[in-house]
């Protein structure tokens, strides 16, 4: 098993390395929104002193850490896999004795992640000098605690996206569904603004959804904004949602493959 993963890694790393120019463009594309939100909110906080208790530095540190967390927990499976189902090239992978999603696609995503993070590091330091955030509230314990939380969040997010990607077995409009899913993340994860500034209704719904685990929870962990109780609660949620998404993905995938082979694609 280890050898398989090693080989898969070599292949997928080489593949992603080929596309490094595209990757830089992707990184740029992805960077713009958080920076704009940062600029918008800090400009408001500057005028008013604080926004519901959030100072300029609170916003700056929030989005600076968000850049890292979002990059670690997000994935691109919809773009690298859905077309394989649609054009039938999945068939070749299905007859191999390894799971197409949970090995090859997963390793491919991790390779992609490694490369984008390599690209992000210098950009992040440039932004650091441009915005000069004060990270004094960050503790080592918070950072260490955030790592397993982000790994769990990555897997949860990956499984959910993989389940949505698998809807391609049924519909050609899987990209539209994914766009809707993307909007949900934007609304409930804390990507736009720290969740406590969102309308109360949205905050209430957020409690019952996994999306805040992708961004808001790890960011707050790193920034040392959570009480021990909140941390425990977050971890429990992380495990519960990981379990749910694993079951959900398996169910969708199994039925999808059944359908795929029935149609004879």
């Amino acid at each position, binding site marked *: 098993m280890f050898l398989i993963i090693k080989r898969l890694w070599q292949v997928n790393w080489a593949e992603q390395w080929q596309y490094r120019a595209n990757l830089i463009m992707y990184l740029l594309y992805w960077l713009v*929104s958080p920076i704009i939100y940062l600029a918008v909110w800090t400009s408001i906080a500057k005028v*008013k002193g604080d926004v519901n208790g959030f100072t300029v530095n609170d916003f700056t540190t929030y989005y600076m850490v968000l850049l890292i967390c979002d990059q670690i927990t997000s994935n691109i499976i919809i773009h690298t896999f859905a077309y394989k189902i649609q054009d039938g090239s999945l068939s070749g992978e299905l007859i191999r004795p390894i799971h197409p999603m949970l090995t090859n696609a997963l390793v491919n995503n991790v390779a992609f992640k490694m490369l984008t993070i390599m690209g992000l590091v210098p950009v992040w330091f440039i932004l650091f000098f*441009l915005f000069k955030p004060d990270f004094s509230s960050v503790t080592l314990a918070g950072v260490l605690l955030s790592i397993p939380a982000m790994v769990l969040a990555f897997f949860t997010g990956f499984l959910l996206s993989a389940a949505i990607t698998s809807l391609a077995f049924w519909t050609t409009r899987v990209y539209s569904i994914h766009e809707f899913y993307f909007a949900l993340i934007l609304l409930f994860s804390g990507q736009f603004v720290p969740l406590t500034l969102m309308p109360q209704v949205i905050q209430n719904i957020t409690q019952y959804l996994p999306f805040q685990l992708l961004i808001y929870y790890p960011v707050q962990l790193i920034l040392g904004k959570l009480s021990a109780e909140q941390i425990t609660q977050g971890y429990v949620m992380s495990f519960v949602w990981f379990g749910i998404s694993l079951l959900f993905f398996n169910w969708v995938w199994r039925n999808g493959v059944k359908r795929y082979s029935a149609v004879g694609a």
Partner: protein
Amino acid sequence: MHTLKLLSAFFKVNVQMALAYRADTVVNILLNLMWLGWELLSLSIIFNNTETLGGWGIGELIALLGVFRLVNTMMIALIWPNTEKFNQSIRDGSMDYTILQPVNSMFLVTFSRITVWRIWDLILATVLIVVGVNMSGGTTTALHILTFILLAITGTLIIYSLWIVLIALTFWFTKFDNNVTILQALMDAGRYPATVYPVWLRVIVTFIIPIAVATTIPLQALRGELASGQILMFVAISVASFWVASKIWKAGLRQYSGASS
């Protein structure tokens, strides 16, 4: 006259294509409405926490959203699909046919794909602008509205010229199919007034990838913040950039046909 005829021919072909994918069109319109909802929600969240953003009120930001959507519609309805077609035609060689048609090739490359359903977005954008202007309740004069329209056109022309330059580069660097990503990436910066951005970002979106020139600046004209000298300057810049772009395009075509080698 003939240009109009050609445009309507392109339009018809693209309506045909849209009809071939009817259900997708409906889904796309729904998604578009969803994003409009999100844009309005995010504005309301911002203005729940403040009265002004960079000195602009909510009405003005709604109007800005309208202008942004106008520019964005041009991007989505024309620029992106035609870029895709252009890159494809360079790859598979059908660019040869484009050059051999007895019509200005820049025109062909700009209008051969039109995402037809996006037209309704123009109406939506106009509504947003009208509502926004009314909400801001300012003393908008007819002159301000005229300069606003003028500068929206010149700003759009500047972005269009930049696009022509970016895709023309493909004639020199054939593997350059990321040619418009930079434009795409910075598009979102047009949603908010450039005045709230830190200086370096403002410089980028005003001078390098001039999204703000087509969004923030026309709106400033609507608020009557621009002097007539500035307005003339933007008109001059847009004419100049269009001229430069068409020169570069022609040079690109010469490169493609090997005149320089």
